[in-house]
């Protein structure tokens, strides 16, 4: 386990930027900034003509660290402790579950809670509880 330091100010500021992006996307396209929904709709079946915009949004997510590195000269620490098998299993479950449950941390957790959606509240409490239970089993049951 890698210990990390408590960063309330940076996390609050970063969170506010995520919120600002969600508000801007609603203002620009009228859509919820739910990353799982946006990413999943990059694959067929296609139900509308919003493909290019979604691809641009995802490209922005991917390019963000490149821009941060260009401007500040460095990137904050990123520690991925999981091995390939855990990454594949975790990725499959994350992808399947977020689409099956109509959203992830951004769609339900940020946008849904902000809209006072009960469905999103149920979803958010469920994935938080499941995430906490999983980490508990992985770290404290061995």
């Amino acid at each position, binding site marked *: *386990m890698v210990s*990390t330091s*408590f960063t*309330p100010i*940076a*996390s609050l500021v*970063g*969170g506010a*930027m*995520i*919120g600002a992006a969600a*508000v*801007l996307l609603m*203002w620009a396209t*009228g*859509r*919820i*900034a739910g990353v*799982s*929904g946006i*990413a*999943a709709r990059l*694959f067929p079946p296609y*139900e509308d003509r919003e493909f290019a*915009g979604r691809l*641009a*949004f995802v490209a*922005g997510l*991917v*390019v*963000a*660290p490149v821009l941060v590195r260009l401007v500040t000269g460095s990137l*904050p620490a*990123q*520690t*991925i*402790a*999981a091995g390939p098998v855990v*990454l*594949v*299993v*975790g990725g499959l*479950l*994350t*992808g*399947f*579950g977020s689409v*099956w*449950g109509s959203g*992830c941390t*951004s769609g*339900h957790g940020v946008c*849904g809670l*902000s809209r006072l*959606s009960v*469905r999103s509240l149920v979803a958010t409490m*469920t994935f938080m509880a499941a*995430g906490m239970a*999983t980490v508990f089993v992985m770290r*404290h049951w061995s």
Partner: protein
Amino acid sequence: MSILVQFAIGLIFGIGLIVSGMSNPAKVLNFLDVGGIPAGTWDASLAFVMAGAVAVTFIGFSRVLKLARPFFADRFYLPTRRDIDPRIVAGPAIFGIGWGLAGFCPGPALTALGFGSVSAVIFVAAMCAGMVLARFVAHLPSLSRFVTPADPLET
């Protein structure tokens, strides 16, 4: 123009993920590790990410949704479902297990690609496969008889 704006919005979102610490799976897992509270290894930062994001979005949405229409679209596409069906619990439960295993949810996983790590590529490839699988299963005729005909991806 709309495409460029959506790229810029993705950039802001991604920079927010990096600044907040969400792009670091170690930080996410230490937040989810409530068993680490007695030992003092619990990292409460992510609660502040959520608080900052929800505060801005709550105020921002209430203003934006008073407009007649979005800048680049004919109307707002807001989720309309209110029912609590099995999938709104089962999906997040499955997602939460994946999140707890690797420390990545979809947004930070995509941003992690730009950090240049092979691990992120493996995770995102599996995540996309899971997404395609979920949409495929959701569109099976035998299932769609029982599921409301609304957009299965709707938040």
